[in-house]
């Protein structure tokens, strides 16, 4: 099997705002995602998880290190990847349907065919009949569904997801997680799923990568999740194996989370 995304010794250093000194968000990160693998990356808040994802997307060039997509070095934007952002990313002046087909339009596939496919995707994410609503007329969960359809309509081989459901309430979130698993299992894309929620990470993934607290974040542990599929995210949380895995990973994470918490406290303290 070839790795669909491979980060080799990736380091990202940012110049600090004051102009003097610099901040290293991630240092010497090696991360490989197999074809069709669902990998979650968990870590304490503010540890540079999104930085890694931006590097894989080609939105951010690492200060040093290499990114390979299907064994080819990544130049510019990663055209094989779809990205789902944590914040609102829909164009507010476009209706749900127009948002879904935006990527097709960028490719020059305009017109009836594109609209037809857009409507199909809206149906698949449970939003048929909502095509002409504008984002502000949709609930948070519905907007996430539109984002999902917007990404998946382009049929990317790699999905990059940056805490996509963190803004949703628990019930909506579990619904969306199940739907994501269902859509994913249909054609097994490679997924990098960023989250700070360990339960979400375990219930969705094949593998969980734990990051250390920032600065200079690096992976400190990898755990294969051998839970059977298909899964139901709310049921699987009660399985004994789930609790066992959760305990193990949580033990490894705890110190880092405390470290990260301490740092954010120091940063905000006067």
């Amino acid at each position, binding site marked *: 099997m070839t790795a669909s995304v491979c980060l080799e010794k990736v380091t990202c250093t940012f110049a600090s705002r004051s102009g003097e000194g610099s901040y290293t968000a991630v240092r010497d990160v090696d991360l490989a995602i197999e074809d069709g693998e669902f990998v979650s990356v968990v870590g304490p808040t503010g540890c540079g998880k999104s930085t890694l994802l931006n590097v894989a997307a080609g939105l951010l060039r690492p200060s040093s290190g290499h990114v390979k997509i299907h064994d080819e070095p990544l130049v510019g934007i990663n*055209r094989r990847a779809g990205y789902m*952002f944590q914040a609102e*990313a*829909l164009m507010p002046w476009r209706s749900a349907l127009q948002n879904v087909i*935006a*990527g097709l339009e960028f490719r020059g596939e305009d017109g009836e065919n594109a609209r037809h496919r857009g409507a199909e995707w809206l149906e698949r994410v*449970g939003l048929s009949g909502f095509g002409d609503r504008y984002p*502000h007329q949709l*609930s948070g969960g519905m907007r996430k569904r539109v984002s999902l359809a917007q990404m998946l309509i*382009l049929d990317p081989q790699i999905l990059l997801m940056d805490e996509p459901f963190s803004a949703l309430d628990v019930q909506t979130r579990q619904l969306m997680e199940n739907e994501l698993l269902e859509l994913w299992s249909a054609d097994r894309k490679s997924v990098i799923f960023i989250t700070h929620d360990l339960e979400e990470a375990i219930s969705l993934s094949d593998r969980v990568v734990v990051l250390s607290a920032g600065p200079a974040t690096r992976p400190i542990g990898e755990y294969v999740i051998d839970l059977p599929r298909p899964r139901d995210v709310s049921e699987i949380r009660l399985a004994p194996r789930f609790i066992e895995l959760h305990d193990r990973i949580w033990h490894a994470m705890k110190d880092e989370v405390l470290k990260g918490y301490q740092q954010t406290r120091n940063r905000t303290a006067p």
Partner: protein
Amino acid sequence: MRRKLWVWQVLLLVALFAVWHVATHPELIPPVVWDNPSRAAFFFGEPLKILKVMGDWFTGGEIYPHLWVTLQETALAFVIGSVLGLAIGLWLGLAPFASALLDPYIKAANAMPRVVLAPIFMVWFGLGIWSKVALGVTLVFFIVFFNVYQGVKEVSPVVLNNATMLGATRRQLLRYVYLPSATSWVFSSLHTSVGMAFVGAVVGEYLGSAKGVGYLIHMAEGSFDINTVFAGILVLTIFALVLDFAVSAAEKRLLVWRPTQGETEQQL
């Protein structure tokens, strides 16, 4: 409740005219400020006469060509000023070096009272409508320009990144993200910029022209015909109200995607 408010608003208008009428009509009340009872009428006009002048204008059809000219000037100034403001705002918003270079000049041009340019425009464009359009353009341009410039700077980076990941080229970003975003800022300044276009047209007419409502006012002023001056002012006010109403209607249609307060979200 809304209907009742409407009635009160009309009543207030009537009351204002009544007070005006009584205060300026000689012999209705004893003179308080002036010894000569017709002095008040000389300075403040008489509502009945003013309404008669307006009635004659509209029934006789004398006012329509003037209104038409003022409307043309306003519309042209608005369209040209907006397009220029949009184009240059987009350009400078996306070109940091050019914007840094031109920054002091733009600030200076904006700080300058642009009405003083009117005589120059008269020389350049003559007494026809184009000198008024030019004056209006200088007023509209800066409002639209600053709005668009700010709008471009404030386009959500997430929306931009998202469009980039969906495969948008730099050109497509401009067309599908920056332009709609900037246009929405143009629309949000619609009331102000239409108002400014109107101000430019009327002030230009007032300073020198052969047609337009501003010209009517200027002529009447020359012959101390205060009633006609007031009639012109009232016509302009009504005209501005109609214009504002039209803008509101256009805004409602063009900005459907904007969240309005109190609108309920549709829960799935």
